[in-house]
């Protein structure tokens, strides 16, 4: 699940294959190197292996949940976390932000807003968008 590029690495953790594919396609266009993970365990392993510049993750997936977010935060303390969830009530959102999540999106997410958040969080690390 790796697309090699000499650019910033973004980890995309999402159990839905189609959604993951969409996100990969969209972020690939930003000129990022993409790592994919289909569940929480795979995401944590990938974090240790690749030291991503940004993590874009679903909340509700196998080995997911707020515990998983807390572990991500522990393994990658300085890495921006973007959380996308299907059912994020106010309490979930508050808990996630308390754990240090930088951006929070409810599904369905506007791809343009998501890309904007990624751009903002990566800043100089971003090589350049594929046009």
């Amino acid at each position, binding site marked *: 699940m790796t697309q090699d590029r000499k650019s910033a690495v973004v980890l995309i953790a999402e159990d*839905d294959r*189609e*959604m993951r*594919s*969409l*996100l990969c*396609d*969209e972020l690939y266009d930003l000129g990022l190197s993409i790592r994919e993970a289909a569940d929480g365990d795979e995401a944590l392993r990938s974090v240790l292996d690749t030291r991503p510049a940004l993590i874009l993750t*679903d909340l*509700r997936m196998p080995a997911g949940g707020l515990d998983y977010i807390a572990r991500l935060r522990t393994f990658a303390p300085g890495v921006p976390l973007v959380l996308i969830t*299907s*059912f994020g009530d106010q309490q979930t959102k508050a808990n996630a932000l308390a754990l240090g999540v930088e951006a929070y999106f*409810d*599904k*369905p*997410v506007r*791809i343009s807003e998501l890309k904007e958040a990624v751009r903002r969080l990566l800043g100089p690390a971003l090589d350049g968008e594929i046009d």
Partner: protein
Amino acid sequence: MQKHFEDIFEAAVDAIGYAASDEAILLVNRAFSELTGFSKEELLRMNARDLIPEQHREQRDRVVAQVLQTGRPVEYEIDYLRKNGSQVPVSITLFAVKEDDGKPTGLAAIVRDFTERKRAVEQFRLVVEASPNGMLMVDEDGTILLVNQQIEQLFGYERAELIGQPVEMLVPQRMRSHHAGDRAKFFAHSESRAMGKGRDLYGVRKNGQEFPLEIGLNPVRTPDGLRVLASIVDISGRKRAEQALQKERDFIDAVLETAGALVVVLDREGRILRFNRACEQVTGYSSEEVMGRTVWDLFIIPDEVAGVKAVFERLRGGEPRSDYENYWMGKGGFLRRISWSNTVIADFGGKVDYVVSSGLDITDIKSMQEQLRKTERIAELGTLASGMAHEIGTPMNVILGRALLWRVLSTKGRRFGSDFPLTGPRAWLLPLHQPPLPEKFDRRLVIFCRNLRQKGVVICCNSHQTLGS
């Protein structure tokens, strides 16, 4: 006139005889001859003392002397010797026959055969003796004339210690003065009745110990005057049993009245016999208000009367127990839901006498259960919504994302060229039938629709809409 007297004398039922001062018999009637078995002739040759058994003569001589001395008649009992050697008990009224100057010239005796009476007296004594109750006879002065063995055992006295003594000796000291007055009243208005109606009676034993007793009084008219035969029963055992029973009742009452459960007891007609405090608190009715009335007249709402009556009928018909739940309507018309456990009390023949129902007011529990059910439903709804959001949100995101991507791409004509026909702001409303759709989008949409159908969500796709118009 003389002849008349002779005829009366001769025909008299009682034996009549006349003797001289030396007791030589001068005149006897037929009855006298029949009583003694001697003929008249034989009697006229005898002395009156010849008819008295040797051992009684001295006693009898004293009576004769008394009559001659005082001139007043005397009645006494004695045995007569008969010609055949047997003895017959007799009652004799003896009086002196006097000259004009008052001097006695002879003795006259009216003699009655006492056999039957003596037999009756003996039978009476045997009956009294055989009675399982203590029996005691007193005269108007309260003197004890007769007791049976039970009295001896009951009071601890020998018979000889009681006969001739005032009956008050058997009454506790504190009650003696009242007793004497009551006894006098009874003799004045005697009738068979229980003594001391409405109050507790006590006797005192020889050792001073008091004990509760029950006394029946029977006036007996005898030739010697009015007597009272008292039947006395020691009720110590019964009193103890009553006290034990009362204690048990008090205990049951205390339990029933302090129990949180409703307890109602019905007779076999459904009438309320018992209605404890919990019932009063739940219904607002007092026990006095509901006694004798049926529960279905008072507490059961019309819709439930038939059901409650059916349960009651089954219990009355022999069903040993049952559980039932129904509303009780209180005094103000409010309803309480009661869960009942019913059982029956039957007689030895199995006939149901009482139905005992114990109930718990479950109104609040029901309300809480309903609240809990609602809460659980809301939680379920939340879970469902969460699942639905996940099921819908993710594929919807894919469709939206892809649609936007394709719109951009089609505009730019890079990847799909003229195969992708959609442009403009409503490009995401796709005509589903219109091939060729890009593979990722097509597959995702089909899977999405199928998943939603499985979850009961109906997707309405307008396949005829012309996009971009």
